[in-house]
């Protein structure tokens, strides 16, 4: 931790409170923009908390499924292209499970309350 206080989380909370305050005092487009801004800051907060772990775990699974190395974005591209061409039809349950896990990871960062009970972390 090379930076002085406040840390990132504290800064995010502070700016989010500012935006929520603006939303409470405004109407129409300005209120909606402020709420969107506050929402995006909460996304950043969760992404900082879970993102790295999710990326590592997905990379491992994709390397095993596709039998190759690469950056996560390369592996996504490879996975999508192979699924599209039907090359993973023989391993459909594994391909489906990976895609589902990747989507659940994304939703748990974007809006965890959207997940059904069966997919909630706690």
């Amino acid at each position, binding site marked *: 931790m090379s930076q002085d206080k406040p840390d990132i989380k504290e800064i995010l909370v502070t700016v989010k409170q500012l935006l929520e305050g603006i939303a409470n005092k405004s109407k129409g487009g300005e209120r*909606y*923009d402020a709420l*969107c*801004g506050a*929402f*995006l800051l909460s*996304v950043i907060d969760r992404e900082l908390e879970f993102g790295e772990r999710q990326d590592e775990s997905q990379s491992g699974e994709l390397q095993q499924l596709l039998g190759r190395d690469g950056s996560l*974005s390369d592996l*996504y*591209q490879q*996975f*999508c292209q192979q*699924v*599209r061409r*039907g090359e993973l*039809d023989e391993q459909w349950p594994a*391909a*489906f499970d*990976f*895609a*589902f896990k*990747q*989507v*659940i990871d*994304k*939703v748990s*960062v*974007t*809006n965890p309350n*959207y*997940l*059904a009970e*069966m997919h909630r972390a706690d």
Partner: protein
Amino acid sequence: MVELTEQQALLDDIVAKLELALKRRYGEATRVENVAIATLGASNRTLLFDLVEPAGRRRLVLRQETLKSEVSPFISPHDQFEILKVVYRHGVLVPEPIFELEPEDDLDVGYVMACVEGETLPKTLLNAPEFAVARRRFAAQTGEIFAKLHAIDPGEVAFLEKVVDSVDPLAAQISRYDAYCEYHPGLDVGIRWLENNRPKDKPRVFVHGDYRNGNVILSPEGIEAVLDWECAHIGSAMEDFGWVCLRAWRFGNIEQPVGGFGPRDEFYQAYTSNGGQAIDEEEIRWWEIFGSLRWAVLNMMQADGHISGVRRSLPFACCGRNTSMIEYDMLMTIDGHFS
């Protein structure tokens, strides 16, 4: 403040040109009054105004195209106007088409139609006490409207045959998705499932393509007008059924599949008893899964508008992240957890 001034200047310019356009058609004494911005939508700008003539006053709506993109999924305003004329003639509940803009109007492309009073905000419609009767009637009324719409001879809107969604709707969505050069494992798994489970060919009918909670004007008594015909095309009648039942259009009221308003059985029964073809529930489920793909791609389009700088907007930035929730709906539906 700068932004507000710019918007006011734009509005003043439009109103001045609109008044000239109206004078050319209705005479020099014509005036424009009570202008209001209804929506600055994703693809259209909508202005409400009074057309004031010596003979009287009429509330009208100006729709102008605002999205100019090579991958736009929307048909041209000219074709939209042609469609309005056809469906109005057949007695489908739509605003009366008044006139189409011409190059000499210098108002870009678009048209003017009658203003229909009522509400379109989905959450208000689903929650406000004054819409209780309209809510109860929505599913059956939609069945009746679909029956009337799908009975129109597609030959009357033959120009829609050239729309890519008329040729192969799944290929059309895939090509839009590919245009953004993004890789979404959930969407590709969904696409593969859709390819492997394509429904059998059905009679081809005229479909609205975007009939949903939010694109329909309701009064407390029920549906008053169907709006937003920019996704109309020729295809399976079941496509319209799948889209109106998409989870996203239930706005949290997930127990009521028809737009968050009502149950499927009333909807299907009203359709068949008004002359609609037999309902294929398995095919409707396919179109709901297809609908998730389509809605996810539309959200990518909004996010792209923000990221590319064409239409910077915080809500559009949120759309990019919303895609994950739509993918979740899609996979939960394929996996049999959602209906």
